[in-house]
């Protein structure tokens, strides 16, 4: 089953409308809605709820003053870091000053959502508007502060260095400087957030459901906030309609407030976010401004690299500085620069907070590095793949220690990967060496086309751990659970594939539960492309434990050496003698000595039925043993395992309108051994689509007053099928030596290099550098005009073909056409 593209166990349920997403639950619950700040920075002077109380169906209205105990304190800083000198988190309901449009000020609980919104509309909040800081330029200028506690609007300042980058750059034969800008957008899952909580007054306990990527994280945070013992709070992630990072943040204010209200009102309470709320009060991942200095030799080998960047973290920092840390470490990609220095400032603005969105800072790092590689190649007149090759970490160098600390606080050491092989595969897939001829033909037709490339390495499977539990019931049913969560990755399928292989049972008998603290309470969560690596391995290890126990018990009962036994299709049998066998179901019965037989099959385990060598001097449950056919294990990695990939794209730009079309998009991807290649490919497709959206269509547009101008799907342009190209994929497998299954993560791969690849391709089509992404046709049209006026220098190679370019600038184009912008100016 491992490695097979089996159909998903989840699908029959989901395609028949039998999914159970958050809003499908709790049909009788009270509904919550929020009054959210319409201003980006304002002091609350008064809140008048008189008119709202009149609305029939309103049950309760709460503000910060109603929040008792720790619910009134700020939300936790989830990932502290020594460089984070001025962290800041919000309150569940604003205490005094709102710091971004969308911040929750008042909570209304009513009989249904329509009524709750009616009440919210009638609540009058008196605000004193305060000056607003939007954008990195204003934040850096720091004429106005977002938080008085954060001078210069800096939440964190960090430097990592290996070797002396400045000296290496100064001593290098060649030098370049680049000023780059990259913006991402937001996770924007099709299902927003939602919380449903039940207070059980008999048990004095909470059961809550939330559309989250970490039910164990939410449970712990909510128990802490509500001052309840952990054992009195259970948290379940139901079917979740996508996460992509935004649902790893926890606890959201609503995740605290809804169970708090449920306890307070002794009722079921539910909150389901609407799309506008998601835009203005969840999280984005937005802009970085990057300054790069690089020193290199004649072959394009990087001798010294120094990167300084400013990162917009929005108004609050509950997730710490994970995103910029990932940028600064994953920037290195598959390369080994001689010396490296990375410095960043994480900056406050009066906008929605910035937390990980699929890729989580890697796209920004890859962008900086790949734009640099392209620039070096153009400067030297070399092929862009040759420059990259000159910088690759080689197979012989593995494991490769960069000398830096990664986002898990552990050394950045690549475990395996064959970058030259990946590149060769990509060049073959896209036809890299044939492009010059293709471009020549296109130019004859009056078309502008360009070829781009981007390479990345992705640290996946970060710890601290995940666990797996397996229990075989007396019916033969195999229950599997792990604590992390699912948002469409097919965990119920891939984990069942692992167990089916390890135990020797049919997948149809395996039932997987994820994200339910009642079933598995020790877990971290689903993020950083870690679920297959972490839970996959933990479940495999647990399955091996169960298998060993099953063979031991069966060996006892059949009076054979367990080493002579195998399990095939749920039957334990002697190798070479299939008649001598016992169903796993029976082994499960035997594993639990009973006084009472609860059904026919259980009779076999009761005390008066002789079983094998029942030695009366030995206890029914031996020392060190436990009853039942169960196994539990954990996987805790020494450090992350590194997947890699390389993408190439051919784009066409309209000579008149500058509209951009992706003609081909090629992906070569290495995530080690794949449990289910169909699922991996689906993950890549989805990632590429988000990458295309982020490169060409999506951007959060804030005005100077901190208003989000495109807070709806009408104006936030997520791609439809018509905007996403057909994606061609090929795979390489360099297994990870770090875990028993040899797997690496795949979840984020598709989106990581896309902005870099598209920028690379557009610049190749246009003949001038693209330094700012995303880009719209209007922006490209404007760059063309600047270039035509001489305000924007062109590439040294102009729009000449890649592949066979030499250093000479007198290359003639095979079609004998003169290129309109045949520039040879050096870039600065």
């Amino acid at each position, binding site marked *: 089953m491992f490695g097979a593209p089996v159909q998903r166990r989840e699908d029959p349920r989901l395609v028949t409308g039998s999914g159970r997403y958050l809003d499908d639950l709790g049909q009788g619950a009270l509904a919550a809605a929020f009054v959210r700040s319409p201003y980006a920075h304002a002091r609350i002077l008064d809140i008048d709820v008189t008119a709202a109380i009149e609305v029939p169906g309103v049950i309760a209205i709460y503000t910060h003053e109603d929040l008792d105990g720790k619910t009134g304190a700020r939300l936790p800083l989830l990932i502290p870091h020594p460089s984070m000198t001025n962290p800041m988190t919000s309150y569940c309901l604003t205490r005094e000053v709102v710091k971004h449009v969308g911040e929750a000020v008042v909570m209304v609980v009513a009989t249904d959502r329509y009524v709750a919104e009616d009440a919210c509309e009638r609540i009058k909040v008196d605000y004193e508007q305060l000056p607003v800081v939007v954008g990195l330029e204003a934040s850096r200028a720091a004429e106005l502060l977002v938080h008085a506690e954060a001078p210069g609007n800096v939440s964190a300042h960090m430097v990592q260095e290996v070797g002396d980058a400045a000296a290496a750059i100064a001593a290098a034969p060649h030098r370049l400087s680049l000023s780059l800008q990259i913006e991402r957008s937001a996770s924007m899952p099709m299902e927003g957030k939602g919380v449903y909580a039940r207070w059980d007054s008999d048990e004095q306990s909470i059961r809550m459901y939330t559309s989250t990527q970490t039910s164990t994280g939410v449970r712990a945070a909510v128990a802490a906030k509500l001052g309840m013992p952990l054992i009195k709070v259970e948290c379940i992630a139901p079917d979740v309609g996508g996460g992509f990072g935004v649902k790893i943040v926890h606890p959201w204010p609503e995740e605290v407030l809804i169970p708090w209200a449920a306890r307070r009102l002794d009722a079921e309470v539910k909150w389901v976010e609407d799309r*506008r709320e998601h835009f203005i009060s969840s999280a984005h991942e937005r802009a970085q401004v990057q300054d790069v200095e690089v020193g290199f030799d004649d072959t394009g080998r990087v001798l010294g690299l120094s990167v300084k960047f400013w990162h917009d973290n929005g108004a609050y920092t509950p997730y710490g500085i994970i995103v910029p840390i990932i940028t600064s470490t994953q920037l290195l990609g598959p390369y080994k620069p001689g010396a490296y220095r990375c410095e960043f400032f994480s900056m406050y603005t009066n906008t929605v907070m910035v937390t990980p969105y699929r890729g989580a800072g890697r796209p920004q790092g890859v962008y900086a590095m790949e734009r640099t590689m392209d620039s070096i190649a153009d400067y030297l007149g070399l092929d862009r793949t040759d420059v990259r090759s000159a910088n690759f970490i080689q197979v012989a160098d593995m494991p490769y220690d960069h000398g830096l600390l990664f986002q898990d606080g552990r050394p950045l050491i690549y475990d395996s990967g064959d970058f030259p092989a990946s590149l060769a595969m990509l060049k073959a897939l896209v036809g890299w060496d044939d492009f010059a001829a293709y471009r020549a033909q296109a130019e004859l037709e009056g078309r502008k086309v360009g070829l781009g490339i981007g390479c990345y390495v992705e640290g996946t499977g970060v710890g601290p751990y995940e666990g797996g539990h397996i229990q075989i019931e007396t019916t033969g049913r195999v229950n599997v659970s792990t604590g992390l969560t699912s948002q469409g990755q097919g965990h119920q399928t891939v984990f069942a594939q692992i167990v089916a292989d390890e135990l020797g049972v049919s997948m149809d008998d395996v039932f997987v539960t994820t994200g339910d603290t009642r079933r598995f309470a020790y877990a971290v969560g689903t993020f950083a492309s870690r679920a297959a690596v972490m839970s996959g391995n933990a479940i495999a290890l647990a399955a091996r434990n169960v298998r060993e126990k099953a063979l031991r018990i069966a060996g006892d009962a059949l009076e054979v050496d367990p080493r002579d036994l195998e399990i095939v299709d749920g039957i334990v049998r002697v190798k070479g003698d299939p008649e001598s066998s016992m169903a796993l179901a029976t082994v499960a019965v035997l594993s639990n000595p009973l006084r009472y037989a609860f059904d026919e099959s259980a009779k076999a385990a009761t005390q008066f039925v002789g079983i094998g060598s029942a030695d009366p001097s030995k206890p029914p449950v031996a020392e060190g043993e436990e009853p039942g056919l169960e196994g539990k294990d954990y996987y805790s990695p020494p450090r992350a395992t590194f997947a890699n990939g390389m993408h190439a794209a051919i784009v066409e730009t309209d000579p008149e*309108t500058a509209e951009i079309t992706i003609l081909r998009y090629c992906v070569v991807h290495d995530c080690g051994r794949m449990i289910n290649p169909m699922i991996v490919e689906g993950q890549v497709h989805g990632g590429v689509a988000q990458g295309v959206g982020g490169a060409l269509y999506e951007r959060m547009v804030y005005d100077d007053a901190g208003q989000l101008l495109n807070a709806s799907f009408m104006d936030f342009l997520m791609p439809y099928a*018509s905007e996403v190209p057909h994606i061609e994929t090929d795979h390489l497998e360099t297994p990870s030596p770090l875990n028993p299954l040899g797997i690496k993560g795949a979840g984020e791969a598709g989106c990581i290099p896309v902005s870099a690849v598209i920028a690379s391709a557009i610049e190749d089509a246009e003949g001038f550098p693209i330094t700012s992404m995303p880009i719209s046709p209007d922006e490209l049209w404007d760059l063309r005009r600047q270039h035509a006026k001489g305000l924007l220098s062109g590439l040294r190679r102009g729009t000449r073909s890649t592949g066979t370019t030499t250093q000479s600038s007198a290359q003639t184009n095979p079609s004998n056409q003169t290129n309109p912008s045949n520039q040879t100016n050096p870039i600065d």
Partner: protein
Amino acid sequence: MKPSAFVHHAPRGVDEATALLAEVGHDAKVLAGGQSLIPILNMRLSAPGHIVDINRISGLDTIEVTPDAVHIGALVRHAQLERHRGAIASLPLLRQALVNVAHPVIRNRGTTVGSLAHADPSGEMPAVLVLTGGYVDLASSRGTRKVTAGDFFLGPMESCLEEDEMATGASFGTFPAGTGTAFAESTRRHGDYALAGVAAAVTVVDGLIIAARVSFVSVTSTPGVLDLGSSLAGMAPEDADWASAAGLAREHVDPESDIHASAGYRRMLVGVLTARVLAEAANNATASSTASAGASANTNGSGGLSP
């Protein structure tokens, strides 16, 4: 995002509807397709106390094709009109434009007359109405009236409908023999509002252009017609200076900048699209005048007789 409460009325006839509007029109909206209205209600950008739901009024879903016009009732869905062979044969521009209105699923419910009444400068159908010299039928308890396209659209999102009035139908004029039409728009994504759009009607008789007119989408505050006849009349289509005509179009329009595109970019698009649709329309004019009955070359959105 849930709408505010309203009283729902479902009249069975136009008279009943107008009587209702006479009473509550100052605080009411008429609901036909709802594809523009209901998002506005859901976002609480508007909170009328009354909704006059005309979907139960019979007789408003007819399409009537006469030699001079295609006349549609207020409940004709975009999708219905888009597929009506007689209407499309008579006035190909209808379908050329309709396939650009949102997405097919929206067109299944949205009404063309509703789209006109909404008077969105980014709407395609207002541009078609003015170019075809059409009119809108209005009714109130005070009587009925026809308002020509030129007088119907007063400003962005503003029509001449009085509080107590509703649109009951619209009429799109057909073009004289020898006219070809075309429509093109540029959007960021499939189905989005146009950054700029142009509709063109070019009449060719005896191999020479005798009339050329265009109207615009998204780049003027109200839909209007630009007559390019003086610069193109008398030329053969193959010799026509489309570029110069495009220049006149660029000067004529008054686009605004927004988060999707600048005014300058939209103006450039107007030039490119105008040249393109004029050429296409002229081509269709020649094709239709030489096509034998039943033969057709129907490419999506670019005109010709539908099969």
